[in-house]
């Protein structure tokens, strides 16, 4: 039947396009993986030879046995998990208020959020450093959390507000008629229906805090307190860098981020709002 043939053609075309795009996207990553299995990597080899001639796990062994590497990994994990939870919660609350409620001063507050999107954070480092010092949050791992959350709120609030906008108002009205206040409507309506948005938020928030380098380096001194990006940067030397080590460490660092991504992208399932209108 022509429909089946059409289906196969469409599917085949899709796969072809996707595969080509995927190859381009993934090639530098494959190169990273390949170099991480080579020992003599002070200079990068030929980029077209992806398969290492003498693959070895030495770089990974070296990285994992480097003093404090595992500890830095766990430090980053703790900070990232706590920060992500707070970011998603606070941003969702703010986004809900901006998107679904009407109140005096909303425009002013939202404009201030937009302003936060445009401010380059690099420039704020010194005033923020002085602030951290005055709040006695220097050199402390938990002290990173307020700063990570504060700097991520503008972006995530803006993102979530856009998504919360899409939920049909009829549902809100239906619940309000049933006597549900804003808080109930937030938890039982907006959040469940926005699973893709919340998932996106979790993914971005986690990635942002996991990868953050400049602030952590500025504020943390105690060698025990450091986070993973600092550990990876330390593998780069002043005169030479063993790229195999750096790449191996970077790949180890990518694993949690990918796990979070895979887990939360399961929310991107079509038809979440299907049937909601009927209720």
């Amino acid at each position: 039947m022509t429909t089946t043939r059409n289906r196969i053609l469409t599917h085949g075309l899709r796969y072809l396009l996707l595969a080509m795009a995927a190859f381009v996207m993934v090639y530098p990553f494959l190169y990273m993986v390949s170099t991480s299995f080579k020992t003599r990597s002070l200079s990068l080899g030929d980029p077209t030879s992806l398969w290492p001639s003498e693959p070895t796990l030495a770089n990974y062994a070296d990285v994992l046995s480097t003093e404090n590497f595992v500890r830095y990994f766990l430090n980053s994990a703790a900070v990232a998990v706590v920060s992500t939870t707070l970011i998603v919660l606070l941003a969702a609350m703010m986004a809900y208020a901006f998107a679904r409620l009407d109140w005096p001063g909303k425009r002013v507050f939202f404009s201030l959020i937009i302003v936060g999107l445009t401010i380059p954070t690099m420039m704020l480092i010194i005033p923020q450093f002085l602030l951290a010092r005055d709040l006695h949050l220097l050199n402390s791992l938990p002290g990173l959390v307020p700063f990570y959350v504060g700097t991520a709120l503008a972006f995530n609030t803006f993102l979530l507000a856009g998504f919360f906008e899409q939920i049909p108002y009829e549902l809100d009205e239906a619940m309000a008629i049933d006597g549900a206040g804003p808080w109930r409507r937030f938890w039982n309506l907006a959040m469940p229906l926005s699973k893709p948005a919340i998932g996106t938020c979790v993914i971005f928030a986690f990635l942002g805090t996991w990868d953050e380098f400049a602030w952590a380096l500025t504020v943390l001194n105690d060698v025990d307190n450091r986070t993973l990006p600092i550990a990876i940067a330390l593998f780069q030397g002043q005169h030479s860098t063993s790229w195999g080590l750096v790449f191996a460490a970077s790949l180890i660092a990518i694993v949690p981020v990918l796990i979070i991504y895979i887990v939360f992208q399961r929310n991107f399932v079509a038809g979440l709002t299907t049937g909601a209108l009927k209720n």
Partner: protein
Amino acid sequence: MSISQMPAVAPQTAGRGTRRSRPRVAAAGPRRATRAAYAFVLPGFALYALIMLYPAVQTLLLSFRDWQIVPGTPSPWVGLDNYIRAFHDPVFLDSLVNSAAYTAFTVPLQIIIGLGLAVLLDAKLPGRVAFRVLFYLPVVTSWVVVSLLFQYIFQSGDGVANHVVVDILGLSDSNINWFQNRWTGMFAIGVLGVWKGVGWAMLIFLAALTAVPNELKEAASLDGANAGQRFRYVSLPAIRGALSVVFILLFIGGFNVFISVLLMTGGGPGNATQVPLTYMYQQAFKFLDFGYGSAISFALTALVLAASALQYWWTRRRMAD
């Protein structure tokens, strides 16, 4: 008065095609709604104000002084001198052009490719998860590693880029020295930006696409619409909100590009590929001229805000049709 006071977010009742009549649900009494709203907003906003707005104000004040970093040293007030200097500074002005070009190049590409990938991955394709992961990999790879690889790809000898341009596409007779010229250098940085950002845009579009109720798509196809038409008339309007969000964020991100330029060219050769933030970093942290560095970043912020406001106002006018 509709809820679209918010910049660039289009209200839409999916599929209904009409403007909503009642903008929002009234809670029991306006006071209770206000109290509830503030309860939602204040915790996050307070933290945000402390961590972002307060230091931003301090940085702004700093830009009006010849600021000395050692505490206790007098920092004389210079008023708008730093700003006047910035707008007469050819390096700063060129850097604005560079970041504008970078934005113009990377934003449309990221949106088109990101949206295209999201559409392809929206269907129930076996292996879809694997593809989603693969496209997201560039986003999670660290900038240091990626810049290194792209420097290698765009090297002046027989690198991958030269191989493609000279041998495969035949666009040039001899190897291009990518990082020796302003525009080839910016192009390489732009390619890196697109490569790294596509997965990010794809993610947001995927999330938006999955929120489109299936019934609407089914109804459209029952009406005889093919895939392209379904996309144009059902999905696209539904994700207009996401499109605006992505556009604004990418636009701001484009002008604020920093780390990739710092790592790829450092602004060189000789300031040719400077963007405002790398120039700011050099002035503030290398030359210790923090007053001037702050002025540069606030000048940039003001310009980006003005541009975003213009874009929002223009979109709102389109919405009103």
